[in-house]
């Protein structure tokens, strides 16, 4: 395994609120190798966004109690002074967001907004920065990039705006690109384009990518590894093949079964996961998923299951024995198709 570029170790992000402590991220560990694409999958409120915003330094100790380590090229970003963090944020680690409609400033021209990011990190003239911005727009396949750079975000379509965001994020040739639900707000046809674009640029820029999504189907062909998160913790971690074909956590099963299939009898209903994601203030004791888990048994509501490796680096946090998991998976989950 190559030397990891980014290592997150036992990251915890707890927000103190009037109602109690919100444990948005509660002990997450993962690592990212150069050129790797990691998918972080989970429902709303599973902590996937918060964990990456924390990596970016966009959640500050003022807002939340943060513990753990975020090692980027061996340097703990959580301990870095603000100003030094700023030189990394946007230049070495950059991020694109869920809703391109609201992520760009409505009052500034797109070219300016991209060049602003470049100027912040490079000692070049405004003219040169703008030229680079135009070049970036061309690289994300925006036609007439020169004219487009001179337009405002509202003159762009949703997909174009997300392209512009990607151009902005990649303008400084970052080592890590974090894409937080990059396609959720877009049309289905545009979704695939954007993900393909990220794939293409990832190899061109030789960057590692983290794709955060709630939709397992979206990331299947774009990720090397996938981490499934539930209630601020990793439920399962493995490479894409493990997660899709040999999943070992009841929550992952639920996610997979809830993907609608076109090749099945149409009169069959969808299979949602019953219940709601837990409140992050009162996380259920033991395994946070146990109230919704059809396979729960004795220790589930008492002991927190550890994320234990099964084979290689495929790991799942579940009390079921490996044999049981494999049996249930093969008989009930995968038998379906």
């Amino acid at each position, binding site marked *: 395994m190559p030397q990891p570029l980014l290592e997150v170790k036992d990251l915890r992000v707890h927000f103190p609120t009037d109602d109690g402590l919100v444990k948005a991220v509660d002990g997450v560990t993962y690592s990212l190798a150069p050129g790797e694409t990691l998918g972080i999958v989970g429902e709303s409120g599973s902590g996937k966004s918060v964990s990456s915003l924390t990596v*970016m330094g*966009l959640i500050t100790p003022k807002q939340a109690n943060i513990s753990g380590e975020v090692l980027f090229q061996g340097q703990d970003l959580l301990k870095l002074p603000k100003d030094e963090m*700023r*030189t*990394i*944020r*946007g*230049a070495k680690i*950059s*991020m694109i*967001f869920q*809703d391109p409609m*609201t*992520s*760009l*400033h*409505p*009052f*500034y021209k797109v070219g300016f907004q991209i060049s*602003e*990011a470049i100027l*912040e*990190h490079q000692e070049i003239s405004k003219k040169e920065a703008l030229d680079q911005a135009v070049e970036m727009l061309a690289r994300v396949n925006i036609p007439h990039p020169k004219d487009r750079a001179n337009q*405002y975000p*509202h003159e762009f379509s949703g997909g174009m705006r997300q392209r512009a*965001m990607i151009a*902005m*994020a990649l303008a400084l040739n970052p080592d890590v690109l974090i894409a937080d639900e990059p396609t959720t707000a877009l049309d289905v046809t545009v979704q695939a384009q954007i993900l393909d674009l990220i794939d293409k640029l990832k190899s061109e820029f030789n960057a590692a990518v983290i794709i955060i999504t709630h939709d397992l189907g979206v990331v299947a062909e774009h990720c090397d590894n996938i981490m499934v998160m539930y209630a601020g913790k990793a439920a399962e971690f493995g490479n894409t093949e493990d997660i899709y074909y040999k999943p070992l956590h009841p929550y992952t099963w639920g996610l997979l079964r809830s993907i609608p299939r076109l090749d099945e009898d149409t009169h069959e209903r969808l299979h949602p996961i019953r219940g709601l994601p837990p409140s992050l203030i009162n996380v259920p004791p033991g395994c946070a998923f146990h109230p919704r888990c059809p396979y729960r048994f004795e220790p589930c509501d008492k002991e927190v299951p550890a994320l234990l490796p099964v084979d290689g680096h495929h790991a799942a946090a579940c009390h079921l024995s490996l044999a049981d998991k494999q049996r249930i998976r093969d008989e009930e989950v995968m038998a379906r198709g």
Partner: protein
Amino acid sequence: MGRYLIRRSLFLIMVVVVVSFLTFLIFVKLPAGDPARRAVGRTTTPEQIENARKAFGLDKPLYVQYWRFLRGFIPWPPSQPLEMIAGKPPPPDGPWLDATEPDGPYYSYGNFVPVKEEIARRLPITGTLAIGAAIIWLLLGIPIGILSGVRRRSVADRAAMIFAIVGVSMPIFWLAQLLLYAFWFKLRILPSSGIPIGYEGWGGALRAAAEGRFILPWVSLAYINAAFYARMVRGNLIETMNEDYIRTARAKGLSERRVIYKHGLRGALTPVVTMLGLDVGLLLGGAFITETVFGLPGIGQLAVSAIGTNDFPMVMGVTIIGAFIIAVANLVVDVAYAFLDPRVRYT
């Protein structure tokens, strides 16, 4: 842009005409007392009243009266100058006889000066008051609002919001009296209320301002507005700082200073322009309370005294001018907004 402005200007004229028509109807159809009767005094003969009615043109059909009233505000061609004001002796049948001239100026029933002239004479006072106060409240309100919005829940924020609550709750006339008591009556460092005779036109108003005669009126008027603006800027800024595009700006690695002042303020201050245009427009139509308390002979005071004496022409004149200024302020705000917010287009 050109077409938009033409369309809006035509619309503006239409609004003013409609307002003038409604005001005219209200004051003609619901007069609180017969103007002709009031004009001739206590002991009169029916003949004299009839003469006065003729002199005012009140015997003419309504559309003639309305046209004369409207004509009094159309600047071109200029209506005939009033000889009485030029120092000539009044005509034997009474000073208002000129009023029957179909093209003559529209006179006040009170002192027989043309309404337009009287308003023009008072506009500099109101203008100086409103614009000076606006500058002060912007200089106070915006920085206080920014400070409070950026350092939310800090001591400075709490202090600023106390300042704002006090300002919003304190009646202007009370604050004005308080200021007068302290700075004129007790400390004797600022002049008392009123503008001396001879301070005419914009020159006179500016001279009065230079002598400090506007300081207390400005402060009284500015405080309440500064309080409103501080609260508005604070609220806008806090709201803007939660926008997704602010997160994007931070994600670019921009300094917090640049995030706040370049990205946050731009969104937060744009609505202030709208408010400012409308507030100043409203005040230019007369800052009634402030003008009355400080004895400033402005539009607001004119309106108050005209209403008190049933001087219909003057009341109507003030109403029209007020409506006109507010309509213009609206237009200015809309045009300014299109410059400030690229999403707004002239259509």
